[in-house]
């Protein structure tokens, strides 16, 4: 599956830099947020702010980089 990323600003109150993730039919799959300075070990990581459909989870993961996020999303979509 080919994913498309589109930069976006997210109004979380602290972390604003984010990415919208679309599938090849331009359907919105997820919103990723780039974590700011206050997170100690997680600063600079990407957080699954919201996931839709198969990406919906109570346990939103964080990823070291966008590549890792895309890999997780693809794997999750391929599952089930």
């Amino acid at each position, binding site marked *: 599956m080919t994913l498309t990323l589109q930069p976006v600003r997210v109004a*979380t109150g*602290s972390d604003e830099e984010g990415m919208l993730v679309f599938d090849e039919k331009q359907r919105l799959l997820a919103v990723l947020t780039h974590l700011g300075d*206050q997170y100690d070990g997680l600063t600079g990581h990407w957080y699954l702010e919201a996931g839709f459909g198969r990406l919906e989870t109570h*346990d*939103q993961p964080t990823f070291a980089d966008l590549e890792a996020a895309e890999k997780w999303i693809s794997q999750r979509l391929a599952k089930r």
Partner: protein
Amino acid sequence: MPAPFPPDHNPLVRKLESIFPLHDDERQALLDLPMQVNVLKDDQDVVREGDRPSRCFVILSGFTCTYKATGDGKTQIVAFGVPGDMPDLQSLHLKVLDISVATLSPCSVGFIQHEDLWDLCMRYPRLTAAFWRETLVEGAVFREWLLNVGRREAYHRMAHVLCEMLVRLRAVGLAEDHACNLPITQGEFADALGVTTVHVNRVLQELRANGLIELKGERLNVLDWEGLKQAGDFDPTYLHLVQERPAA
């Protein structure tokens, strides 16, 4: 060997007295309970789900969490334990533990053999009532946590649990006015509140930014108690304390 505490500072006595008035002879009987004291590091299981213990433990110092896990290993903390609590008191009547208890900080715990507790309860029926009351209050706390996790937003959830910890610690003499030590990491709060560590971080920032709390390392200082209570929708009635201090 009895725990090395002056009678006024014995955590078990303090805890029971916070929810049940004790007579002198009952207090003495609790102080005389044979107890094996163990010192544990942080992040260690004290008891595990499925265990069949022949003893219960009292937290003498430090913090614990009571937790359960899903089949695929996701953990939910269902309660925090503070000095004086007996997180596995249920094992006196229920033979197989349905919970695990782990240390959140270095802890000193006192193990009491079931037979000694049975003997104590036979000799002092009012103490049986006190332990019964303790388990009922524990149930009330679980119900409040269910409401908290199920229906309150993360910001209010966090405010609520901070209020609860402060009031419970104050009841056993471990909080000064509106400050206490709280050796609970953001990851542990996340497991207790059913949100991610990122979310815990954000709501703590928000509580700080709103001037309600100050959190430096393990030290919690509540700057605006009324405001925090309001944010947490917190009413201490469910803790059923004999005497709630005016500050709360």
